[in-house]
């Protein structure tokens, strides 16, 4: 088995941007909006680079699916210490309907092609909140999965994962090759500094088409509508406790 790790990185609207819904409710406004790497993907990259620094793996390959702009996201991952990138070019209508199933098909195909030992993904993306890609990638590959990881330890061909579950932690051990998804507390991603950004420019990014991987990107999901959360109504100010009691009685609350 090679000692190669495949990491998926997604370009999403920056977490600090206020999201606006398109007037026709078909989606959200993305034009002219600041984008950056999905924070959970940053954690996944960080973990892979850490494993490389511990010499437990030899190569970190980052993958991103989308138009030309995702190259920027791949470069960021390379500046964080990944070795090389793969840009899976998906544009136009296909990019609009690109979802977890399509991405997991791509990831599974690449994991086989690259003979990866491990696939690390963020547990979910902050734009669609799906939390499906890791699980589906594992299913398509028929590999074990360790989701919501907050601690990862490699021991030979086995991997121990501490998982964040409701109200506690669960520790599991699975065989590699495997799929791991990163939770928030797994690590703190490093910042890309100038020497690393410059060196990232020298690293290779291969361009791949989904068809080259034999992946069909047809989506069976139709977005019916995207809506803003309901607006909070303005409150009423009362001067005294008596006024408050009167108001509550009026509203039928007491």
């Amino acid at each position, binding site marked *: 088995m090679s000692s190669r790790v495949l990491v998926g990185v997604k370009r999403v609207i920056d977490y600090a941007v206020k999201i606006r819904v398109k007037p026709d409710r078909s989606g959200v406004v993305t034009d002219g909006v600041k984008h950056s790497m999905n924070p959970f993907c940053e954690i996944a990259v960080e973990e892979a*680079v850490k494993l*490389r*620094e511990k*010499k437990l793996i*030899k*190569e*970190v390959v980052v993958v991103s699916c989308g138009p030309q702009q995702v190259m920027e996201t791949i470069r960021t991952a390379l*500046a*964080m*210490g*990944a*070795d*090389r990138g793969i840009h899976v070019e998906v544009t136009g209508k296909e990019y609009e309907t690109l979802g977890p199933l399509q991405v997991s098909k791509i990831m599974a195909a690449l994991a086989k092609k690259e003979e990866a030992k491990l696939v690390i993904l963020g547990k979910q993306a902050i734009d669609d909140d799906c939390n499906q890609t890791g699980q589906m990638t594992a299913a398509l590959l028929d590999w074990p999965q360790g989701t919501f990881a907050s601690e990862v330890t490699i021991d030979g061909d086995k991997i121990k994962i501490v998982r964040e579950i409701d109200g506690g932690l669960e520790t599991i051990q699975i065989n590699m090759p495997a799929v791991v998804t990163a939770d928030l507390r797994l690590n703190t991603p*490093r910042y890309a*500094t*100038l*020497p*690393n*950004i*410059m*060196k990232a*420019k*020298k*690293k*290779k990014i291969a361009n791949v088409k989904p068809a080259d991987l034999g992946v069909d990107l047809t989506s069976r999901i139709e977005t019916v509508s995207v809506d803003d959360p309901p607006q909070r109504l303005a409150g009423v100010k009362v001067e005294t406790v008596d006024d408050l009691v009167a108001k509550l009685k009026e509203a039928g609350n007491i």
Partner: protein
Amino acid sequence: MLVGDILIMLASFRHSTVDIRILRGLYRFIYTRNSDIKRFVMENTEIVSDKTLTPEIRLNLFTPNCQFWHARPDTWPFSDPYWAIYWPGGQALSRYLLNNPEVSRGKKVLDLGSGCGASAIAAKLCSASHVVANDIDSVAALAIQLNCELNHLEPIPCVTDNLIGSEPESWDIILLGDMFYDEELADSLHTWLQKCIKTHNTQVYIGDPGRAQFENHSIKRVIQQLAQYTLPESVREENYGLTSSTVWLYKPDV
């Protein structure tokens, strides 16, 4: 100095790339004389001696105290300043030469892809009879001159033509630090080096921190490990993902 400050100020105001391009052009127009470029290099780097594998060599390098460390990489007015970083492969090579002065003593040495010139300087310090640095960046050539001065050496001649593929000269030694980040470059080097060895019995020394492009290249089958060094903390910070650097002797069957 003044133009530099304006450039940095505008960059921090997030002006459009067009403004940056105009200013870069203006910058190049002003900094046409070598003495001006040298002054610019000195003003925008810091003298580093400790914190590297070769504290006995002083170099003008980027550090976090330099304004461009924090600036956007595209605000740098010349081609990417790879010479402003002391690369880990070059550090290992220079350390090896200084530890084993008999390797380069009295020899005719070429430092290919010289960057900051540290390996060429190391060979010179070990009394090599003739040392030539080769880097296709003309600013690197000036930086190498400055670094020679810092180490009280006569300036080492620097060739800025791409020597890979040219008719080989009678080099006793060729030094290659961090030249295997790209498979195509590695392939063309492989062919050229074989020719150098065949015609002049040249000894080829390679410094590489274990980049995947080098580790996976067929060249790995024809090299012999000479020394391995653990990278100091500050060097690791500049090279995310890398923790050690190795010196190899290239031994193809020619």
